[in-house]
């Protein structure tokens, strides 16, 4: 029963990550998402101070909103006001906000355990309530992507076209940031804030190796994430039963996502270029060049 629940929760997380992940990588915001996945700890801590409850839907939404706002504001401020390079300012902002988050959490809960739990996540203690928490966020992602598919597509591929069509990029940019933040927060309990980046980026990179259409990428990315989640839970259970190894399930899933990417890229690099060049030669012969 718990295995099934774990699979469902992790799959739901993988799907909601798989929906926003493609836009994230296409807009070259992967490092920004890394930053965001750290700063939501501070967002959650502040939301906890405001609302007084840690894992209610409203406090998590407030936390995600605050985190997205703070990260975007501070990083942009450092770049524009202080003329710092982008990479340096991202690095500076996320580490300091993360440090602040850990400090606030430790200060108010006097429980260093929460800090570690937040960072590493613990897929082995997920309950029915976690599933109920993850599903609304999945729905939010799905709804936003379905409604604003065109806008997201255009702003991530062609900024000038977006300008001509009078789609202003910044609201959708911020919406994407907010969705990433909510996604990170929904993954908070099961996989922690660090490993969620693997869920956001890994499956999309794998899918892009063999697929080049955005609608299909939005289909394949969640699917790969889901497969990795299910296999990860099974593997974790198997290792525990057979060898008595209690490993972090979230960690196993993230490792699997990485391995899938490595194998897929090796396979495609080994076979496709040869096949392609052979194909090309055939075409050239056929057309008489």
């Amino acid at each position, binding site marked *: 029963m718990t295995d099934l629940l774990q699979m469902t929760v992790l799959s739901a997380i993988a799907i909601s990550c798989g929906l926003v992940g493609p836009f994230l990588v296409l807009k070259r915001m992967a490092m920004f998402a890394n930053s965001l996945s*750290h700063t939501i700890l501070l967002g959650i801590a502040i939301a906890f101070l405001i609302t007084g409850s840690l894992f209610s839907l409203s406090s998590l939404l407030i936390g995600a909103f605050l985190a997205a706002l703070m990260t975007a504001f501070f990083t942009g401020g450092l770049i524009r006001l*202080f003329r*710092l390079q982008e990479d*340096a300012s991202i690095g500076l902002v996320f*580490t*300091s906000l993360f440090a602040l988050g*850990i400090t606030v959490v*430790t200060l108010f809960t006097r429980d260093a355990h929460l*800090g570690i739990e937040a*960072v590493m996540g613990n897929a082995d203690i997920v309950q029915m309530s976690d599933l109920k928490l993850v599903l609304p966020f999945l729905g939010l992602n799905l709804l936003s992507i379905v409604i604003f598919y065109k806008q997201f597509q255009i702003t991530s591929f062609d900024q000038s076209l977006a300008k001509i069509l009078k789609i202003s990029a910044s609201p959708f940019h911020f919406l994407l940031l907010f969705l990433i933040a909510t996604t990170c927060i929904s993954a908070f309990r099961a996989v922690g804030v660090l490993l969620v980046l693997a869920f956001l980026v890994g499956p999309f990179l794998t899918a892009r190796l063999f697929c080049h259409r955005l609608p299909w990428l939005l289909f394949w990315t969640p699917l790969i994430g889901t497969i990795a989640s299910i296999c990860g839970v099974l593997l974790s259970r198997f290792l525990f039963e057979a060898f008595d190894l209690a490993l972090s399930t979230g960690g196993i899933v993230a490792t699997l996502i990485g391995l899938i990417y490595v194998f897929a890229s090796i396979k495609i690099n080994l076979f496709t270029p040869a096949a392609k060049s052979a194909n090309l030669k055939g075409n050239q012969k056929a057309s008489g060049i």
Partner: protein
Amino acid sequence: MLLFGQAATMSDIHIWIYGSLAFFVALFLFLTFRPLQASLFDRDFSHSAKMPVQALERILFWLLLLSLIVGIRSVGVVLMSGMVIAPAVAARQFTDRLQVLFVLAGFFGAVSGLFGNYLSVLANLPTGPMIVLVGTSFALFSLLFAPKRGVLFRRCRVLSFRLRCLEENILKGIWKKGRFSETPSLIVRTALWRLKKEGWMNDRLELTADGTLKAASIVRLHRLWELYLSEQLGFQAEKVHRTAEEMEHILTPEMEEKLTRLLENPKHDPHHQPIPEKGL
């Protein structure tokens, strides 16, 4: 605790281990400083000078790894990237020289380690986050208040330039109209006060002898630039006024000298106004 660092678990032997690792890193930087500098600033040049750029970069990567290992026990793996960046950002605001940058960044790192550890013991908070917070506050402080590069200094420079422009415009206005006619706002009053202090204006808001000369020289720069634009660059006479309004505050005496020689010591500007003689 690898994630956030726990200084309390350290013992004497760690001083030796981490100390020697840090010494090794510093020694390497000291020995390979020249080629390192060349490859950092101009990769193509160092390639063409047959320096081992790739080997250097590879070694630099391993040194970074070493430093991260040094930091694991005190700062923790998660926050080490902050410790790599923050001291360098802080040091960069104070210097333009690479040697100084290395030393200063090391110094900032050491100080933030010290204070962070102290604070963490004092307030019973996790060590790594405190060290990173101290390092980041150093970086923010330097970004704000560092001389020359700091935001505050740059703002002051812009403001003082604007004030000087205002002063010179007031002088010019009085020189042309013979009297001061403007509703004095706070900034205008500041400018007037400074003009009086510099002795270019008396208490009845009239130009002194020095002030007249100064105003004439500003008008001269303005009209010289207008003439230059219309004669040498072929602009229409109606379009030259606006840039001249800005250039009159920027032109230096050497530029004035060259303009005078280039335009063969002119007497009238494109609007047939007389150009005042060089006075100061």
